[in-house]
């Protein structure tokens, strides 16, 4: 099996996490959670446009926009009392927002296991991030018909 390649931005995030010891990784995840951009008004005012991600345990909603030139934009909402979920959403935002649709679709689903968080975060949580990615990809495919 050839190791799946990540886009450079996501690879840098993975490298950052792996360069740190356990407790510092959680701190980095906390910083990501604080950097999650707020939802634009058009989504905040019409929540029906958001897709719920029930796999995350904590309430998480996302929206995906694919521009005519295939640039992907991602939007997430998760409450402040769910910092881990916010952190995961923020990693996906930092690693994928603004990329071309094909680049997002090429992101291997198992990249979540490369962050070195397995022993720090419960497996269900990591599966929540994988579910976000799967739903992002499905929305991209749906929107491109």
């Amino acid at each position: 099996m050839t190791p799946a390649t990540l886009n450079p931005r996501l690879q840098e995030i993975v490298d950052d996490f792996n360069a740190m010891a356990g407790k510092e990784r959680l701190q980095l995840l906390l910083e990501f959670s604080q950097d999650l951009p707020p939802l634009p008004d058009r989504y905040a005012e019409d929540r029906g446009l958001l897709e719920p991600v029930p796999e995350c345990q904590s309430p998480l909603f996302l929206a995906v926009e694919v521009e005519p030139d295939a640039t992907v934009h991602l939007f997430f909402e998760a409450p402040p009392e769910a910092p881990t979920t916010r952190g995961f959403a923020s990693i996906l935002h930092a690693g994928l927002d603004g990329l071309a649709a094909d680049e997002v679709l090429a992101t291997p689903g198992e990249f979540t296991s490369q962050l070195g968080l397995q022993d720090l975060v419960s497996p269900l949580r990591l599966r929540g991030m994988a579910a976000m990615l799967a739903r992002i990809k499905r929305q991209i495919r749906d929107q491109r018909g």
Partner: protein
Amino acid sequence: MASEGEVKTVALPYDSAAKFQEYAHPEMIVSTEWLAEHLDDPGLVVAESDEDVLLYETGHIPGAVKLDWHTELNDAVTRDYVDGPGFAALMSEKGISRDTTLVLYGDRNNWWAAYALWVCSLFGHPDVRLLDGGRAKWIAEGRELSTSEPKRPQADYPVIDRDDQQIRAFAGQVLAHLGQPMIDVRSPGEYTGELLHMPDYPQEGALRGGHIPGARNVPWARAAEQDATFRTRAELEAIYHGEAGLSPDDDVVVYCRIGERSSHTWFVLQHLLGYPHVRNYDGSWTEWGNSVRVPITRGQNP
């Protein structure tokens, strides 16, 4: 109960709030008012136990230590809890002695705090209490939060053998218990088995859906008010005696998915309603729903 060689600290008083005096074991629970008043008392350690592994870092009760269910209370390899030496090391590192008054609180109606309390009870920690209303109530009341990591001196917690006989049940014991009172505290959808059939959703790690035959469904959070505090004794009796048909002398097994939500119900039955024989089946549905040839019931009937 202090072990030899430890400095004996004066036990903290119990919370005399009227609501708690109705409960069978009022010494197991404290209010936010009580905690705010006693926060600096020697002999007290407050520990936060959350579902979200980062929530403590966003701000916690001043001086509270973090107790993580996944990385600290579980054994890293075997599906089990830490053993006696492991628990002693963990408590010592947190600055908790055998005679410490340990107050636990957390997110989600104290779901994980109750789980931590149950694990501490496997080791018979003499004085462990839950903060009524947990993290949500403390914050809702505008009380102080801190992001600084408390520096507690290392304690010397003795190695205590874990007692799995009194409040913990294993699958074989649950099989032998069929026909006797059992409470499934999961959501109605998990209880009936329908949740396993939602398309495209990773499930909770079980191959089969449904519940253990005979178990009645009382979702755990029914024991909590909107503000995350426990319901009054009369309200709890209406739910567990009136609706679920339990009586205090019953031998009861409670379960959920991995034994965390059911720790909350275990606490209610054992300490608030005073049932002497309540065991938490921590293997719960992730074990039962994957076991070969165990009986399963689907649908709404027990």
